Structures are given as C-alpha cells and as structure tokens.
C-alpha cells in the first residue's frame, strides 16, 4: 500500500474547501461540500486497505484468507448516508433561495438583510 490514496484524499479536501470559498453559484457550492466529503471516504477506505486481501465477506472464502478491514467500510457506509442527507437538505435550501430571490449567487445572498 503506498501513500497515493492519502495524497488524493488531502487533494480532494483542499480543492473542495477552495471551491466552497470561491464559489459563485450555490449548486456548485453544494457539490464542493460533497467533494470535501469524498476525501473522507477515500481516507477511511485507504486506512482499512490491505494488499492482496479480499472483501470481508466470509461466506465463500477459505479460512485464513486475509481480508480488508470491514469496520472502516461500515463507517464509510454510514458516512455516505449522512452525506446524502446533508446534500439533499442543502439542495432543498438552495431551491428555496432561488424560489424566493431568483438568484444563486452566495455573495448576493450574503448582502441581503435578515
């Protein structure tokens, strides 16, 4: 196992944050939040990975065969569910913003009064 997945996870984190910071469109911003989240998926799976190991399903593999860590996969699955919820909710907010103001520009939204 090499260091590449960790570098990609760090890269996804950084470009995701950069995208959120510089975004000029709320839908784009929500996608950038998902990009940041993708970095957590990759980090989790990279931590549980083992070379020459198979999926942790014990039904049809010989005893003693090495498998990757199932715990991080369970964490990752939970993370995916959380991510889907958050993204759906964020997009619902964005829809409401567009319905009320006709704009998707975060800076214009920030300038509006309470």
């Amino acid at each position, binding site marked *: 196992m090499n260091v590449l997945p960790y570098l990609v996870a760090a890269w996804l*984190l950084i470009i995701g*944050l950069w995208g*959120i*910071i*510089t*975004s000029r469109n*709320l839908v784009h*911003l929500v996608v950038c*939040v998902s990009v*940041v*989240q993708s*970095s*957590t998926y990759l*980090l*989790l799976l990279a*931590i549980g990975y083992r070379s020459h190991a198979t999926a942790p399903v014990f039904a049809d593999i010989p005893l003693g065969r090495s498998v990757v860590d199932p*715990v*991080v996969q369970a*964490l990752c699955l*939970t*993370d995916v569910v*959380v991510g889907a*919820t*958050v993204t759906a*909710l*964020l997009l619902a*907010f*964005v829809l*409401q*913003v567009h319905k*009320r*103001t006709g704009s998707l520009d*975060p*800076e214009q*939204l*920030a*300038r*509006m*009064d*309470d």
Partner: protein
Amino acid sequence: MSSLAPLPVAIPLIAAAVLMGLGHWVPVRLARLFAVVVSLSVLVLCAVLVVGSRHSLVLHWFGGWRPEAGVALGVSFAIDQFGAAGATLAALIVLAAVVTWLGSDELDAVGLALVMTTLAAAVGFCLTGDIFNLFVFFELMSVSVFGLVAIDASHVGAIRGALQMAVSNSVGAFFVLMGIALLYARTGALNLAQMGNALTSRRSDQLVVTALVLIAVGFLVKAAVVPFHFWLADAAGTAPAPVAMLLVGMVDSLGLYAVARIYWTVFSGISAPHIHALRLVLLVVAGGTALLGAALAWEEARPRRRLAYVSISHTGLMLLGVALLDPNGLAGFGVYAVADGATKAALFAAAHGADHPKHPRPRAAALVLGVGALALAGLPPFATALGKGLIEHGASTSTRPVLLAVLWFSSTLTAAAVIGMALEWWNHPMEAAQSQSRGWGWAAVSGALLAVVAAWGVVPGVARAAVRAADGLTNRAAYAAAVLATPAAGTRPRQTPTPGLGVEPLLLGLAAVLVATGLAVERRRRVSHGHEPSAVMTQPWTILKSRSIGDAVTWLTVGTALLGAGVTLAFR
C-alpha cells in the same frame, strides 16, 4: 439502571416517527401536547441517570456485546454524572423551547418531529462511550437543527442562516470524521476507553496531534468559537426564537462537552507531558472568543444578532473552564454551561415574545432581559457566579489574574449590551390589547429558566457535586477500567478539594452589574443626543460579522491551520 440507559434516546426517536407518521391525521394541539409529555419524560429519565451514576458508571452494551480482555467490539453507553447532566440540560432546553413555541402557528407536526430527533441525538451524544456513535449522534443533531432553522421557508434570511450553518457544520463534521479515522488507524479501536488505553502506551506523533486538532476543530465549530462563529450569528439571528434557544442553550455547550470528553478519555494520557503548552493554546482561543464576542455584542444593533454574539462570548467563558484541563475548571464549566445555557435560552424566549413584525414589545420581555443581564454579569445567587468562581479556582496562581480579568470584562460588556436592549424595549412597550400575539408561554418559560438558574446557585452542595463529577470525567484510567471491565490497578479515585468561594463572587458580580448599567445608560444618553455609538469601532469588526459562506469557510480553514500549528508546537 443499565436497562434504563437507552430509553431517553429511544423514546424521543419513536415519538419523532409517530409524529411524522400520524401528524397529518391528529389535531396539532394533540401533537404539541404529546411532544411536551415526551420531553418531560426524557427530562425525568435523564435526572434519574444523574442520580444513578453518582457512585459508578452506568454501562449499557447494546446487544450484550461486552468487552473481552480489554477489547470492546460492541457499542456502549457509558454514563457518568457529567454526561447525564449534559443530557438533562439538553432535555430541559428542548422542553423550554417547545413550550415557548406552543403559541405560534409555524410549529406543526413536522417541526415537532425534528425537535424530538434533536433531543434524541443530543441525549445520545452525551451518554455514548463510542467515538463513532458520538459522531453519528452529532450529525443527527446537526441535520435536524438545520431543518429547524429553515422551518419557515418564506423567510429568506432564515434559509441563508440554515445554509451557512449547514455548510460550516458539515465541514466541521468531516474534520471530526477524518480525526476519528486517523485515531482508528493508530489504535484499532472506536471505544473511547480502549482508544485512550492504546494511545497512553505510546509516544505522541504528528498523526495523533493532527487527529486531536481535527476533532477539536469540528466540535469547536459546533460550539461557535471565534473564528468559527459566523454560522451562529446568522442562524440564531434569523431562525425562529425557540430554535435559537436550542442553538445557544444546548448545541454550543454540547460541542464543548465533546471536546472535554474526548480530551480526557482519549488524549489525556498521551498529552500529559505537554499539558502546560496545550493549556496555553486552548486558553488563548477561549479568551479571544470571550473578548471578541463581547465586543461584537456591544457593537451590534439588531437585537437577535446581539444576543447571538452574547452567546458566542459566553461560550468562550465556558471554554476557559475546559481549557484549564483541571477538575475545578471542568466543574466550573459544568455549572456554568447549565446556568448560562438556561439564561441564554430565557433571553431568546423573551426575544420570541417581543419578536412580532407588526407589534411593539411587551414590557415583560424587557424585564426578562434585565434579570437575564444580572445572571450574565455573574451576580449571586445566579449559578453563573458559582460557575465562574469554580473556573477561576481551576487556574494556577500565575494565570488567575488574567483569567479573572477576561471573565469579568466579557461578562460585564455582554451584560451591558443586554441591559441596553432591555432599556430600549422598556421604553417602547406594547399595548395590552396586542400582547396576546405570541401567547404567554415564553414569559412562563423565561421566568422558570431564570428561577432554575438562581435556585441552582443557592442549593447547597452543587459545587461539591460538580467537582466530584469532574473528578470522575478527568480520571482516564478509572474510566477505562470501569468500561472495559479490566482490573483497576493503581487507579485511586481523585478527590479534588472543593474551593470555598467566600464573598468574592458577590463583589465582582455587583461591580459588573454597576459598570454594565453605567455603560448602557451612558450609551443610551449619547444615542438620544444624536451621537453615533462607537462609530470608530465599526469598521474593523465588519470582517468578523460577515454573512458570506465563503468568508466563514475561509476562517474555518485559517483557524484550523493556526490551531494545528499551535497544538503541534505545544507537543514539541
């Protein structure tokens, strides 16, 4: 007692499902009554857990998966008095928010279901002994609160607040998850006690430091500590007032509770050689939050946002208690979190009563603000004074004067900001005929909350109980031995002496109230003479008051980098 432990989470979760499923068919009054009864029963159950956990941990292993030879495969609730008290605070604030909200039309069955989910998640968050479980409850609480902030979809400001909060808090949550992943990689465990044991036998390295920083940042975002505070000003400034009560009364304290819990159970062993430097880093963050929040509150003109900045400042004061990394300081944090959370919730309940677009404000709301300001200033018998006294006694003799100055200055300035609002509202009251617009639930709730804060300060033995609870939380080895059922060799129970506070809190509180009243009256006089108040201060502060999501995430990134640098240096 152990079989009782999952109930305060299960009951509101089931209630939420029932409300979602049947909410369309039953009258909304019945749904509201149901929610009040459920919150009340959770409050009682949590109070029972506080009593039940006074001698030893209450453990519940889900599915009977008990630990073997120090390895925990299952997920547990590991309830000590500190956690049970946090859950009780959450139930109290949720009950107060629901009762305050009863008089408004916007509260339907869906809103109630979200409140119940928030309650279940907050209680589970306090009771769990597993770090991933903690994360999931944390996210469940966050997502339900995002929905609650934006429950009135016709209010664009509230939707912006929800969006701002959701983006900042989600990024914070991803940081927490990354920290958990790194810790799992290092320890092979997710149980707090087992993680702590695995780390304590090692030397610290950059991976552990990075994990500590990521987890701390994630929960400090939830606590809205400067520079991660942007979302709270926007969300509490625009959400319906009862939702803001949840944000300032419960969510921020729980963020700090998580920092304390994870630090003491997981990191306290490995960071013991570096504790002085780490304390300094945390104290700087806490002090900066307290002072900047107070300045922002004093400077802000819109009432709801001003209360939000007051809350941020007081979160800084609470963090001082955690940052001392000492049982007395932690006990102070516990007392202060309950007292201050209830006070801030009372203030927002008053804002709810006054918050009607067409009607002027009832004088009773001004009265609540006035009394609340006394509690904010730390005047005995309000328990805020007791909390502050304990925090102060957690400091070493060299840091105590600085700590005392920060505590006194921030509470005086925030009290002045609130007294200013009270004077304004008192002088622009509401006619009696119109005062029914919001019902009087808010008045009953704010009165009851302030009474709780005062009573909590005069009940004898609160300080001693808090110090004992803090002793329990800070004793990592004893916690690990109890959770993992391993022999508790060499883990004597701690017995930190309870400090006697004397008349000092009374004098400090009186001075704070006098100065705060003076400041507020003087500013009012200037405004009525046409002087723009503190116009010189306005410019530099706008950067800390931004409502842009981009700015908030920029500060989140910069703050993470700075805290990371600070903690890395502390671990050298």
